């Protein structure tokens, strides 16, 4: 989550849903919160009952819009125009919270003269390498910072083929102008950058009337100041765009300008759609980060030695100064006794990133025959993957495929049930893939934790034993490790050394020889190596190999034997401390030092959260302070102070080397220090802001046969298509289409179109239509509804087609797969695909009757 990670320091929701009760306004955008997060939405409903204004900005009128005070329909993919419009509105109307902005953000910091904005270079920032299609971020650094120490993506999501050795720049050496008047200070650059995002531009290209925009802007942007706060909730409606991270950045900038970060009722809630999606990036299932957002070492100079790696990723000032402690403790947890100072704690056994190993990257490799086998666990890519028709063809090129699931999903049955096989395009006997379907235990059948939206670890107990041969993930991974190590022992090749060096001594119990889940949580918490005592938190971790810790941000969850804080069930106070454990250190609202004035007093009585107690000389309040408890508000660091001691007492964003919230991102993003509007990879309009740069220059379309694109605009594909989920189903449907009580609630695939479009195309409600994109064609019932509104863009009508993606070819209810229409593409920072705004056409009738028309439309695609 680099959008929040770069702006504030940590890639996680900054507050908890119940804190929305403290908000004066809630902006929900890029999310259909009522439908996809109905339980968390109870707080929005309750806040609204207490007088909070709820705004929903979304192309569709959904169950969220229905109960919002204000619904603003906008064209899918025009979010940065709208959000940029809000930023401009705040600046032009002097609605920003000056004292907060001056002290807590980098608005005052001066950027060197050689930086050039997109406004100067017609849509690209300085540092663009047209050949490699990447940025060199040197000119984005602050004036005064040694730019020879080149900026490289911090924390996560790089994935270049070879990384040079460039140490982290020392961001504490900045120049600033506290009056915000210097023409090259971030504040003035921001003003210039967004000057053209006017209400008129929003009206013309988002399809939002000027009145509606100004009404929404006024409602949200006045929830700011010492006495008021507003919160923003988003989900995949922002993430899944070719500029998704920059959409989130816009929101993050807005919250800094309004002074809404780290305060009660403020913040940004990154809503997570599954039970432990936050957990899956904390202890990651991603290829480019290690647990606790440590960067995965990349092949090249940076990973030649552990020292190089530490130099590159740790900073002189700020919390990341401690990176050496976290990486060494992680290596000790991985390799135990084998990790010694002499062998750099086993750093060389860690795999190196050599290219794009993201989902999109390796699936294209699979299609090219470069992969032999695949494990699929907790995912159903045959339905959920982008361009899933192409992904199914990829599966058919593997030698072997292991699917661990509670049911036989489409991924496990593609070889005999997929539409390609049914239509005769693929023949079962010609698919070489050997498929192993292994039964998995459900969440009630195993112990463990969920880490939910608000970074809260909650323990869950096994309620019943899994049936038959079904086993937990812990069981599977442990025993797979045992078998692989057995195999490796007989094979002396050097590549097996890391596997053999692993500390793989988990206690197993019971008839199934199940590892003990609490013991794994203890390892994640961390312990001292000599006497195996649990550590009380990450401040106890050391870089000398005397501590081990599986994920430093989770440290403190199991501070002593018998004290599993994820299993706490005695909530106290408004924030519910005593129920579960929120990383880091049970802080419920991140950066909460910002809830006090620079001098340490609360901004106001109504919005007090954490403050400096002048008597006991400590930070105190309603939450665990996200700050060194004894660092006084007037603390000034000595010249050469390092780490947290290098940050002053009024710098709340303690993971950053300068302690600021970053309106401007000097280090860490691959597509610019400020957000700029680019159109989606397929769009009905040309980019109105930068006519010469239609799409995000750093995004990758991955064009190839089978993954083609329409032009922008394209007469063959005139409508904007957006995919989404419904309350009644769970993602790709493996856990809902198989259960009658859920399947019956949304039993068939449908698409949603406006009354006007239905009239234009003579579609009667309920009839079959075929939806066609440059990638594929599917059939669905047409649900004709005023909930999809025709928008006017550049004076012309633009229609949206809503496509839920829950159906597939297995289960109690079946239907065509929405994701067959999506392209494999990569956003530049997280390599996610664009699903929310692409182009399509709609014709009457089922697919089989429309083959000729489909062929005609797709003719001439590259």
């Amino acid at each position, binding site marked *: 989550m680099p959008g929040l990670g770069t702006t504030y320091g940590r890639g996680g929701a900054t507050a908890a849903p119940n804190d929305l009760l403290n908000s004066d306004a809630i902006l929900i955008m890029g999310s259909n919160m009522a439908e996809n997060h109905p339980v968390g939405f109870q707080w929005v409903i309750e806040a*609204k009952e207490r007088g909070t204004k709820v705004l929903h900005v979304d192309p569709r009128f959904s169950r969220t819009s229905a109960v*919002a005070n204000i619904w603003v329909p906008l064209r899918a993919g025009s979010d940065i125009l709208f959000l940029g419009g809000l930023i401009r509105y705040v600046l032009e109307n002097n609605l920003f919270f000056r004292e907060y902005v001056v002290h807590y953000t980098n608005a005052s910091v001066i950027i060197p003269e050689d930086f050039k904005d997109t406004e100067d270079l017609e849509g690209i920032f300085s540092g663009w390498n047209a050949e490699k299609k990447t940025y060199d971020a040197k000119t984005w650094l602050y004036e005064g910072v040694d730019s020879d120490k080149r900026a490289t993506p911090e924390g996560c999501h790089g994935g270049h083929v070879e990384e040079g050795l460039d140490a982290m720049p020392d961001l504490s050496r900045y120049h600033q102008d506290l009056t915000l008047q210097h023409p090259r200070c971030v504040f003035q650059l921001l003003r210039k950058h967004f000057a053209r995002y006017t209400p008129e531009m929003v009206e013309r290209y988002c399809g939002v009337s000027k009145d509606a925009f100004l009404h929404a802007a006024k409602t949200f942007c006045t929830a700011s100041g010492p006495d008021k706060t507003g919160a923003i909730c988003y989900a995949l409606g922002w993430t899944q765009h070719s500029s998704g991270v920059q959409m989130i950045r816009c929101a993050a900038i807005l919250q800094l300008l309004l002074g809404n970060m780290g305060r009660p009722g403020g913040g940004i809630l990154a809503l997570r759609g599954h039970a432990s999606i936050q957990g899956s990036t904390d202890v990651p299932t991603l290829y480019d980060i290690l647990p606790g957002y440590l960067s995965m070492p990349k092949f090249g100079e940076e990973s030649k030695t552990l020292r190089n790696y530490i130099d590159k990723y740790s900073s002189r000032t700020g919390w990341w100064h401690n990176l050496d402690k976290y990486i060494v403790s992680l290596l000790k947890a991985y390799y135990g006794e084998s990790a010694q100072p002499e062998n750099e704690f086993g750093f060389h056994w860690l795999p190196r990133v050599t290219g794009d190993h993201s989902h999109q990257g390796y699936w294209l490799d699979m299609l090219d025959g470069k992969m032999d086998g695949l494990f699929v666990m907790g995912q159903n890519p045959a339905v959920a993957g982008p361009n899933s028709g192409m992904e199914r063809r990829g599966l058919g090129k593997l030698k072997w495929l292991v699917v661990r699931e509670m049911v036989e999903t489409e991924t496990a049955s593609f070889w005999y049930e997929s539409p390609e096989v049914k239509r005769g395009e693929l023949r079962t006997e010609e698919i070489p893939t050997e498929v192993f379907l292994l039964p998995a235990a459900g969440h009630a059948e195993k112990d463990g934790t969920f880490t939910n939206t608000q970074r809260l670890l909650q323990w869950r107990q096994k309620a019943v034993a899994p049936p038959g041969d079904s086993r937990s993930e812990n069981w599977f991974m442990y025993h797979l490790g045992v078998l692989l190590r057995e195999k490796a022992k007989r094979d002396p090749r050097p590549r097996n050394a890391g596997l053999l060096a692993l500390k793989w001594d988990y206690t197993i119990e019971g008839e199934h020889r199940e590892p003990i889940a609490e013991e794994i949580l203890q390892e994640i918490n961390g312990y001292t190596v000599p006497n195996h005592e649990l550590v009380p938190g990450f401040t106890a971790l050391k870089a000398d190999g005397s501590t081990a810790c599986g994920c430093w941000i989770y440290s403190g969850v199991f501070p002593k034997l018998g004290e599993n804080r994820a299993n706490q069930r005695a909530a106290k106070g408004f924030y519910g401390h005593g129920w579960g454990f929120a990383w880091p250190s049970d802080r419920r609202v991140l950066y909460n030092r910002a809830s006090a004035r620079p001098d340490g007093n609360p901004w106001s009585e109504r919005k007090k959260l954490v403050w400096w107690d002048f008597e006991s000389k400590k930070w105190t309040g309603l939450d665990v302070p996200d700050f060194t408890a004894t660092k006084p508000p007037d603390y000034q660091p000595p010249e050469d102070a390092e780490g947290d001691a290098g940050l002053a007492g009024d710098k709340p964003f303690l993971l950053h080397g300068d302690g600021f919230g970053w309106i401007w991102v000097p280090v860490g993003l691959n597509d610019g220090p400020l957000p700029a509007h680019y159109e989606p990879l397929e769009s009905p309009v040309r980019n109105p802001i930068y006519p010469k740069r239609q799409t995000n220059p750093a995004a990758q379309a991955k064009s190839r046969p089978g993954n083609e694109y329409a032009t922008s605009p394209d007469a063959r594909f005139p409508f904007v298509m957006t995919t989404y989920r419904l309350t009644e189903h769970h993602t790709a449907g493996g856990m809902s289409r198989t259960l009658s009580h859920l399947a019956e609630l949304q039993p068939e695939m449908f698409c949603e179109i406006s009354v006007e479009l239905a009239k234009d195309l003579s579609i009667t409600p309920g009839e079959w239509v075929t939806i066609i994109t440059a990638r594929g064609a599917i059939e669905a019932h047409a649900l004709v509804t005023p909930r999809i509104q025709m928008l006017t863009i550049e004076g012309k009508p633009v229609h949206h087609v809503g496509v839920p993606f829950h159906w597939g070819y297995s289960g109690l209810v079946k239907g065509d797969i929405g994701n067959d229409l999506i392209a494999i593409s990569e956003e530049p920072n997280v390599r996610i695909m664009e699903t929310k705004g692409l182009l399509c056409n709609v014709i009457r009738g089922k697919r089989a009757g429309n083959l000729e028309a489909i062929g005609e439309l797709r003719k001439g695609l590259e």
Partner: protein
Amino acid sequence: MAFTAFLTDATICIGCKACEVACKEWNEVPEDGLVLSGFSYDNTQALGASTWRHVLFLEQPEVAGPQTADTKDPFRWVFLSDVCKHCANAGCLESCPTGAIVRTEVGSVFVQPDVCNGCGYCVVSCPFGVIDKRPEDGRAFKCTFCYDRQKAGLVPACAKACPTQSIQFGDLEELKQRGKNRVQELQDRGYRDARLYDPQETSVGGIHAFFVILGEPEAYNLPPAPQVPTVHLKSAWTSALISAAVLFAIICAAFAV
């Protein structure tokens, strides 16, 4: 034991259908058809033998009034979770010839599945169209008010699962008052068409499941003046007796001539 009731509030329902699912899970109610209705997101369509909670999706044009007091939306989409009303004078109970339908100590109307013989008299006697026969089984089923849970001191499954407290459960009189207060509060906040659905002065004699709705009850398939069919008994028997007497008189007259 005091009488209990449901208060279901359409103004805070988000249409998630958790009540429908919780009801079916707890009461082991079977699936009710895998058919796309095409009517908004309402594929359940109506209460029946295998649907004891039904979330209605009402799409109305702007003229119907705003959904939220200060909104400028061109239309509204209101959700309401319908359920058995557990009438004070219950048509189903009064028409049941076997005594399978009984009144419980919490005031609810309960169908004893082991006594029901599937005659179906109750089906036509319900003024709300709630109770129905399950074709594959033959017997009649409807909401049990989670009598088993109430006996164990638990809240009915639907109310327990509702994330926004749109479904509230509690003491009958208290909830009725809460409903009235809620409507007053909504009207004060600008929801001019907010009202409590709790028909009085009808032969039903009061219901144990009230609804806070926006606009006319007919739009929610709620009859404005529900009547128990048995109120027609007196006039029906009177007409029958008069007809019989007249017929008898004519016959007598015929023989007398």
